């Protein structure tokens, strides 16, 4: 099957071959750094998202999504502009949002042809459904009927995942570590998970997504960041399996085509604390590439995923565009803007 990326690559190669001698010769030929493994290798454009900080400031860049028209939405906890809307060339098309000091999770959902954003705010202890231009559609407060949230400040949501029926899963990754399931109108249906070391419990249930790669049996993938693992649950909340990624503090899972992408906030086994990277798993949950880090080609039992070069500081999310380029948003990384990785 020819993908859009294959087509573009072939077109680009054809076009380049016609003009290559003059264009490439005249521009010099310093080889860019290429990171990653196997089929998943990337060049890096560090300044892709860089802006004038006096106009569009960022604090932590938490998450990014791409809408149907190709625009990229970045969520930051800077309350001058919680949302920055980028075009693919890295220019700002729009900016909005001034009321989310704890902006953390950003999820895009196509609701019968109309795209909506879900934003979690762990400082306001709330989850918000928004239009793409910033209109509030629904607010979900702490479920105070649940014992753990009698004090609503215990609710510190980090991520949402929206099922095909519109029901909402909220990961309380900085709070009581529960996963809360709501109907599309915000009525609580189920609570599972919680803090602990057992298989069905979490230490930092940071990110969540619907894994619909098997169309007839979708499941939930939920990261347990402090446990360096991702856990698979049924949509009803039954733990199915744990995929361990030793050393890799994974933030949220992002399904794109048959792959699952993770930003890794930091890693064990290196001397610098800002030791993040990107990790990519295939449909069989096998790691196929770790841009900026080690790769276990020999399937060693004691393997530790860890950063090898300081391309990234603290990656917090990875957004995959239609051409399978990556955009990496980073936490606590000196107010830096997203980095683009161009797949080669």
């Amino acid at each position, binding site marked *: 099957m020819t993908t859009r990326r294959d087509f573009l690559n072939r077109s680009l190669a054809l076009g380049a071959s016609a003009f290559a001698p003059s264009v490439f010769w005249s521009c010099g030929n310093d080889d860019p750094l290429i990171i990653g493994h196997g089929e998943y290798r990337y060049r890096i454009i560090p300044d892709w998202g860089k802006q004038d900080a006096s106009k569009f400031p960022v604090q932590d860049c938490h998450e990014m999504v791409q809408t149907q028209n190709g625009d990229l939405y970045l969520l930051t906890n800077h309350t001058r502009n919680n949302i920055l809307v980028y075009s693919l060339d890295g220019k700002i098309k729009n900016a909005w949002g001034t009321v989310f000091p704890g902006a953390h999770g950003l999820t895009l959902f196509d609701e019968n042809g109309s795209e909506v954003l879900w934003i979690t705010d762990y400082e306001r202890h709330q989850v918000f459904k928004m239009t793409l231009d910033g209109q509030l559609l629904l607010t979900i407060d702490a479920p105070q009927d649940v014992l753990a949230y009698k004090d609503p400040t215990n609710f510190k949501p980090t991520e949402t995942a929206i099922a095909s029926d519109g029901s909402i899963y909220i990961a309380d990754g900085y709070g009581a570590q529960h996963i809360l399931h709501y109907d599309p109108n915000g009525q609580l249906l189920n609570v599972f998970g919680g803090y602990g070391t057992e298989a069905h419990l979490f230490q930092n249930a940071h990110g969540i997504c619907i894994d619909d790669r098997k169309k007839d049996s979708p499941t939930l993938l939920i990261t347990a960041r402090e446990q360096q693992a991702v856990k698979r649950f049924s949509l009803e909340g039954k733990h199915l399996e744990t995929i361990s990624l030793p050393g890799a503090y994974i933030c949220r899972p992002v399904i794109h085509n048959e792959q699952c992408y993770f930003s890794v906030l930091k890693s064990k086994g290196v001397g610098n604390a800002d030791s993040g990277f990107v990790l990519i798993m295939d449909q069989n949950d096998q790691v196929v590439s770790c841009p900026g880090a080690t790769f276990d080609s020999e399937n060693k039992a004691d393997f530790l995923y860890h950063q090898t*070069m300081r391309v990234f500081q603290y990656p917090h999310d990875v957004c995959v565009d239609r051409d399978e380029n990556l955009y990496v948003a980073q936490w606590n990384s000196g107010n830096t803007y997203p980095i683009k990785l161009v797949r080669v």
Partner: protein
Amino acid sequence: MIWRGLYFGVLLFVGCTQETIYLKPDAVQLSTPVVETSTIYSNGVNKLTAPNLDPEATLEVVHQSTGGRLTMASGASLDLELSGKYQIRSLRPPLQPSATIELQLLPEGQLISSLTWETQPEPEYFKGGSAVLTDGKSEGPSFQSAGWTGANRPFVVSVEMAHVKAIDSMVLGVLADAGAWIFPKAKMQLTATSDNGAPIQKEFMLELPWQTQGPSHHFISVPLGIQAQIFTLQFEPALLPEQHQGAGQPAWLFLDELIIY
């Protein structure tokens, strides 16, 4: 012909001005290596390893005072024989070398017959017991490791030497980790009885310069100047300095080694 030339010129101009700025290898630094040694002593059997060294990288080890330089491939080990400080970094051109880390090897100390942590310890930070203070191993930068033991209130350690000998000095392995409220500053009171039964009491101030960078291991040397077989050391951790967010609260003092010379 002119039009073709102009067309080609435009192509050339567009190609150059819109060139994408990709990151080059020489703009990227290697990650900082973590090294392990079999002991903190330069006793001739000390092996240095770097368990997570990038397979394509080389470890460079330079002895500070002599300038002697050794290199080691990933997966290999090095024998370190000289006391003193070593500067260590990883190399993999054209990437930038990693940050340099420092390793210090010490001469072996006098034989300690027993060392006992007398005060009720904090169980969470006493996983390795008082034995960690004489195991000849330097711990990594994580205070949660079993090789560290610490407290944020006064504690007493008693030491019995194998022989009565002149004790010149003591070296303590300490941890600095401002983020975890660990600050190597404490008052230390030594109490002993001399050969002739006379009491000995001395007070010292242990202190490293305040630093806000990530966790790091250090050695503090204390001149004792006594002759005794048994002595006790009472440590009183200092308060966190005013530039710390917990200013005025007791700091934690973490130790991983106690060596007597």
